[in-house]
């Protein structure tokens, strides 16, 4: 983790996948949220399908299973979404402190330390997020204006083509893909600012979150190549997740064992997604190390354990 190296996509991915304990914690949180979403449905699903010989052996995408779920949930019991997603916001805001710690410091993983860092930073990370949330509409302004301009010129974007185009035409043209690229860059700029801000909070133990947010934005704006690379990282993540999801969907269906296998492979899909989340944070940490060496502000190193200081613990 040399401060002189350029932030590398491959290095970040490597860290993301090596940090398997961190990913496991994130997966646990993901399970918790998804489990709460599905929990209200389980009694209905069990009652409808638990002793249903007509449904046995039928493919998932059939009128007897997924396409018949409307009848199962007619009297209630549909999955709940809002409350579990609220919990996700809280959980992720909490856990992100630990993720930043792992991305910055490396070294041996200890759950206690992970949760300690998470707890230490949670309030500041929450405030930072709210500050940077203000940047999101600004970042969205560019692709939105571009989409409107392109529409006026008769050029398609995936956001302005008609619904009919999705079914009968070609929503993905050179122009719409180009616009998607701009959207990806705008999102990458915002998301990288968020990650950089979190790294700054951790590394420099900043208390002023508004200043941290502003510093992060300036840092990211001064490193346009990093924004592009971060977008590339996101693109790789999306592709990897889609390919893994495709593999999961290709599995045979028809019995309990295969259903469990599909669920297991589904966890691989989620694992990949979460590993890339860690990779994104690592990418931001490397960017901060390269562009803003650690300040000598008193107290900064107090929270950066010596054995996991960046210079001592290169993760790869």
């Amino acid at each position: 983790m040399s401060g002189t190296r350029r932030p590398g996509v491959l290095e970040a991915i490597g860290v993301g996948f090596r940090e398997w304990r961190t990913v496991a914690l994130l997966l646990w949180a993901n399970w918790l949220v998804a489990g709460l979403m599905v929990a209200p449905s389980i009694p209905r699903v069990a009652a409808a399908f638990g002793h249903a010989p007509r449904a046995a052996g039928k493919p998932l995408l059939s009128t007897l299973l997924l396409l018949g779920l409307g009848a199962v949930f007619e009297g209630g019991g549909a999955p709940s979404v809002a409350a579990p997603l609220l919990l996700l916001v809280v959980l992720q805001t909490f856990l992100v402190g630990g993720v930043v710690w792992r991305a910055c410091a490396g070294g041996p993983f200890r759950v206690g330390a992970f949760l300690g860092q998470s707890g230490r930073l949670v309030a500041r990370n929450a405030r930072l997020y709210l500050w940077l949330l203000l940047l999101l509409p600004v970042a969205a302004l560019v692709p939105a204006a571009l989409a409107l301009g392109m529409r006026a010129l008769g050029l398609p974007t995936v956001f302005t083509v008609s619904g009919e185009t999705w079914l009968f035409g070609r929503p993905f043209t050179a122009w719409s893909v180009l616009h998607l690229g701009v959207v990806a860059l705008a999102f990458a700029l915002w998301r990288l600012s968020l990650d950089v801000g979190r790294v700054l909070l951790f590394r420099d133990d900043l208390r002023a979150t508004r200043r941290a947010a502003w510093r992060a934005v300036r840092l990211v704006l001064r490193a346009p190549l990093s924004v592009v690379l971060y977008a590339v990282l996101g693109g790789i993540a999306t592709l990897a997740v889609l390919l893994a999801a495709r593999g999961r969907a290709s599995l045979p269906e028809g019995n309990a064992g295969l259903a469990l296998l599909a669920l297991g492979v589904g966890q691989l899909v989620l694992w990949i997604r979460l590993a890339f989340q860690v990779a994104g944070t690592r990418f931001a940490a490397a960017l901060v190390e390269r562009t803003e060496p650690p300040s000598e502000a008193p107290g900064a190193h107090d929270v950066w354990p010596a054995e996991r200081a960046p210079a001592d613990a290169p993760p790869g």
Partner: protein
Amino acid sequence: MLLPLLVSALVGTTPAPARFDQTGRSIGPALSERTASYVLEARYDPANRQVKGTARLTWTNRSDAPQATLWFHAYWNAFKNADSTFSREASRFGSRSGTGGYRRDDWGWTEIRAARLPDGTDVRPTLRWERPDDGNAADQTVFTLTLPTPVPPQGTVTLELAWEARVPKLAARTGVAGKYTLFGQWFPKLGVLEVPPQRGVRTPTWNCHQFHASSEFYADFGSYDALLTVPRAMVVAATGVRTGRTENPDGTVTHRFHQDDVIDFAWAAWDGALEVHDVFRSDGLPEVALTVLVPASAQQTAPQAFAAAKATLEHGGRHWLPYPYPHLTLVAPPLGSNDESGGMEYPTFVTVYSRTDPVGPRDILLWEVTVHEVGHNWWQGMLASNEFEEAWLDEGIDTWATAEVLEGVGLDWNLAQLAPPGTRWLLAPVLRSAVADRDIRARASVPRYQSSIVRPGWRFKGGSDVGRSTYSRAAAVLRTLEQEVGPERFSRIMRTYAERWAFRHPGTDDFLQVASEIGGKDLRPLGSALLRGTAGLDDAVAELSCKRRPVAGGPGLYDADGGTPTFRRSRGGNADPALARCEVLVERRGDLPFPLPVELTFQDGNRTTLQVPSDEIWSRFDVERPYPGGEVVRAEVHPGAPPPLDANPVNDARSLAATPGPALSVAGWLLYSGQLLAAAVGSLL
């Protein structure tokens, strides 16, 4: 005459004798009464979206009463303002295909400029706007003209009409979109004078409804001869056979089309369309020339439209009635106009869909719409029911017919085909499926409906109620009747219905009469209950449980030898003889009082069938049999033949043993989807 024979010899088929010649005129006796025939002349000015037309109308009074007042439709006035009945209903139903998004120049109208008898008598001053359905004073989609002398019974009148119209922006399968114009319901058109015993009327009655947002049409048969003048660049396709093409000095072209024995005339004028031709030939069936109009950007649509049309002509010709017309035109609209103008039927002229990158070799989207619209040529084009009041006779039967044709060619819905090009390689495995069209339609079944199937289109509760009732539910009713009489008899019912009522106006009772006669039992009570009631069906095995019970009895007080109640422990040791005591709870969750048999399957393989009393909405059956072997391992209502109207076929059977496969599949998929959603939202955090 030699050419068809030569072609037939070359391709090895022997077509049936043609019913029409190559100019669209019938060979031999007329197939229909030709009550209302038209000679239409229209000039289209696309720059100003203006149509000027004349119609020479010949109408025969089929009734035994003189008729002085003639009723007409002026459909395009539905698009005249936001207060037309069509606009109001479309807005109320939340229909996308309304005038809600119209801007200043989008509105359209029809104005009758002149109405004269052959002797020059002007009857235009007698024009009166009528609102027979809702009394909406702003609606101008129906008008009457009163003649100075009534048309005597069986007499004929000829009227010369002149009209001018502004073409509306494309909506509800008519109008203009860019360089493409679809002319549906575009000329002043007579209503239908219903004559006893037609559809149960007792006195001659004009049936001429306003243009509604959720109903289609009704017209008499006749001969149509149309001269259509358009700019030279426009490709024109229309009902019937093209019989002439004349270049005019002013840069326009006049196309002439003719067809006998049809109920309507529609056409399309399209600058930039590709016109592709093919021929349907099959042993024993009349030869049909096929034309497809398709946008250049979606020309791969044409081969699939041809193939689907041929499959329908083949199936319909063999199972219902040979398609008699010499020509069939399919218009695949330009991209962007599929929603508003694709999927519409007119005699010998239908609109389908166009797709830039159809999935090969058979794209279910293109096949389904083509089969369905071509199928209308039987159930609406030849059996001209009143779609205002009994739309199921067209849409419901045609939905049934569509599933028949698709099953015949082995084509199912594969959701992977709905993915846009560029993503199919990635998404195809995720969406891969094979769901029969009839199963997709069966998903519309519910235990209780909002409306009866037989009712005027505008009296349904909403747009989805119309669709569910007249399409999918009506098709399920037909399947229910099929189940009652068996597939072979039902096939004969449909053929007889088609043969008997072709080129006439059947009603619901006429269909049920044929069904009863050919089905070998009176299907009218059942048919009426299904079509005129709101009851649905969801019969379910709600519970199944079994307990082992010792033959000698369980614990408790039993009379000892002297008659004194004495406590006795259970004698149910594992080695002692025992009974399997099982309880099965069966429920009727819908209102249809169908016979409800329940088949119980025992562990030893024996089976027994019980009946739920017809006046009960639930029954609990207690069954005791020797253990082991006497446990009920499966209970099933309607064994072997689930009713097509059943809202939830999964609950028709229940097993004693758990079926973890489907439960885990569904629960696992829900969990996985929740995880993906959480991960996606997590990207923003």
